[in-house]
């Protein structure tokens, strides 16, 4: 009788552990978003300045020693339509109606840069099982180490921008992504240079700098009166190589990357709403912070699994002894 009660009790406590396990991730507080690093570096892309020349695409290929993508017989320029194992940076076109007016949502066109946003709270880094993706503690640059990578491609699924790209066409491929020209063997930032794309941009549409200085510049542009003339810098926002004067467009009052999913170090501003430019529907909360909260509430110190294991070992031992044989 007593033993029955004891068994019943241990069964109930086992059920309690299971229920606790089910409820732990629901009730646990997810960690807050990671915060921008003090000296994070990044880029500001101003879509209204981009003329679609793709000098940045060509320079990126040169710096990273990657072949141009050619689709047609023209072979005069890189025809990459999207990021791939051969392309880390691409200029995409927005076109509506007759496409006659630059930066108009209706009957207009605009250009949009697509490259790694170097998230403040990067999903790729969070989901990688083998720490092949890392965020630099000072610069915030998200880099990739092919020697650790197993090719599970969770980073691709975990990236809100579909940035990491696997080289599917190679038998021994790897993930390719923009590492802000600072990867081993390139190290442009460490050597005091700018990223390739911001160095060659003829209009300053891609601007290099610290996240702080770039955010200040973006906010300044939000305040400008449409139709006025503004002196736009080229190259490094804190130390521009040159300037040019241009009429101020009607900016959307939205700096993409200031807060989206914890923010990004590469930010965008535009006269066209960002959903039309193909940026994803993101809230302020980074999805990976929720995933980590769930994971840690279930597995911190393996406490829950250990309790479950101890309880089950006891119950199973009792039950198998009773039967007098194993499996």
């Amino acid at each position, binding site marked *: 009788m007593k033993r029955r009660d004891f068994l019943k009790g241990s069964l109930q406590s086992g059920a309690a552990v299971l229920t606790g396990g089910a409820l732990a991730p629901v009730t646990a507080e997810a960690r807050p978003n990671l915060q921008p690093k003090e000296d994070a570096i990044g880029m500001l892309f101003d879509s209204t300045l981009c003329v679609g020349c793709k000098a940045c695409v060509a320079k990126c290929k040169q710096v990273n020693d990657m072949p141009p993508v050619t689709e047609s017989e023209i072979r005069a320029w890189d025809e990459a339509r999207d990021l791939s194992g051969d392309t880390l940076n691409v200029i995409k076109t927005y076109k509506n109606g007759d496409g006659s007016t630059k930066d108009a949502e209706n009957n207009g066109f605009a250009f949009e840069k697509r490259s790694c946003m170097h998230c403040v709270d990067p999903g790729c880094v969070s989901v990688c099982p*083998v720490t092949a993706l890392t965020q630099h503690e000072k610069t915030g640059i998200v880099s990739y180490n092919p020697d*650790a990578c197993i090719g599970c491609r969770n980073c691709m699924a975990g990236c809100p921008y579909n940035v990491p790209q696997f080289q599917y066409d190679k038998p021994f491929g790897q993930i390719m992504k923009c590492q802000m020209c600072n990867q081993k063997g390139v190290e442009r930032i460490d050597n005091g240079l700018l990223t390739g794309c911001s160095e060659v941009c003829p209009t300053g549409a891609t601007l290099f700098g610290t996240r702080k200085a770039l955010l200040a510049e973006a906010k300044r542009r939000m305040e400008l009166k449409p139709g006025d003339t503004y002196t736009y810098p080229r190259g490094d926002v804190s130390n521009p190589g040159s300037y040019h004067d241009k009429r101020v467009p009607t900016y959307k009052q939205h700096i993409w990357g200031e807060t989206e999913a914890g923010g990004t170090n590469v930010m965008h501003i535009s006269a066209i709403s960002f959903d039309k430019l193909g940026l994803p529907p993101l809230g302020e909360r980074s999805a990976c912070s929720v995933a980590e909260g769930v994971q840690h509430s279930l597995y911190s110190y393996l406490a829950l699994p250990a309790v479950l294991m101890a309880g089950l070992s006891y119950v199973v031992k009792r039950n198998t002894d009773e039967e007098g044989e194993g499996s």
Partner: protein
Amino acid sequence: MSAHEKAGGRIFTLPFMILSVIAAIGVYFIIQRFVYGMGAVANINGGFPWGIWVVYDVVIGTGLACGGYALAFTVYVFNKGQYHPLVRPALLASLLGYALGGFGAFFDMGRWWQFYNIFLPWNWNFNSVMLEVGLCVALYIIVLIIEFSPAFLEKIGATGLLKALNKVLFLFIALGVVLPTMHQSSLGSLLIAMGYKVDPLWQTMQFQPLFAVVSALIMGFSIVIFEASLSHVRFGGKSETPLLGVLGKIAVGLMAVFVLVRLGVLAGQGKLGLMFAGDFSSAMFILEMALFIFPAFVLLSATKRHNGGALLIAAVSMLFAGSLYRFNAFLFTYNPGPGYSYFPSVPEIMVTLGIIAIEIMVYLIIVKTMPVLHRSEHA
């Protein structure tokens, strides 16, 4: 004397030969994948990094291999010894499902030649759900081998080893419950970090691990019913229908939990209306719910529960329901944004079919040559 016996009979039957042709085609394309790269065989792309090899072979395949998990709960935790005859065949199916799921994960790995990196502690990222899945599945395959090994030890007559193993087997049985609880729930947690890419009707965030583990148990119980019914038809022996009926009843309870909590969570997240949106996602959601609810109605009736045919239909519906839940969340309604779409290529499908064929072939060989099925005279 063992309570199990080999089924015997010819191995190279006509169905076996047909399966071996499918398997050979699959193996041919797996070799292509290794020689020319994944892009030569599969249609996965920048927006859909995971195709059917991950979603069917690993995510759904291991769910369908949860028979051992479900029965371990029933027999050893809730002490229902009368289910013992079902354990060994279920363990074999689980072992094969998981082993081939592991193989699927391996040939889907982009950098397979350094797969061992996930086992090196200095590489571990404890924030990663994938780390938990990878390590836990690998460990569980080993546990399944140990749990199934008595069949092999009996066959070769290693009684000493068998006795020693039986002394510590309870630890592995307990692990056989703990590990699937862990990684089956984590398979759901994988979806959390994918955020908006997972359709709102499936993106339940913190509730993902709960739905994943409950769907694993539903699939586990229904695969036991399915396999036991088929094997009764094929190999004869006493019908286990009364026993299976009770398993069906447990599955009904799990389905009630799954459906009610799911609807409750969607209501709480203000997304219930989306199921009536009339789009592809809402249609898939309603189909999925129908597949969950239909067997519940069948199995609520005691007469139908004890009717082998009705039971089998209910089990098949549950298997489709659990599989569709995972297919929907990971693939069918997955939307990485404009410019990306995915439909598996023929070679990609052939690889998956080949894996399934190999699984069935190995199951048949082992059942015919090793003491797996329960001895009919005192079942």
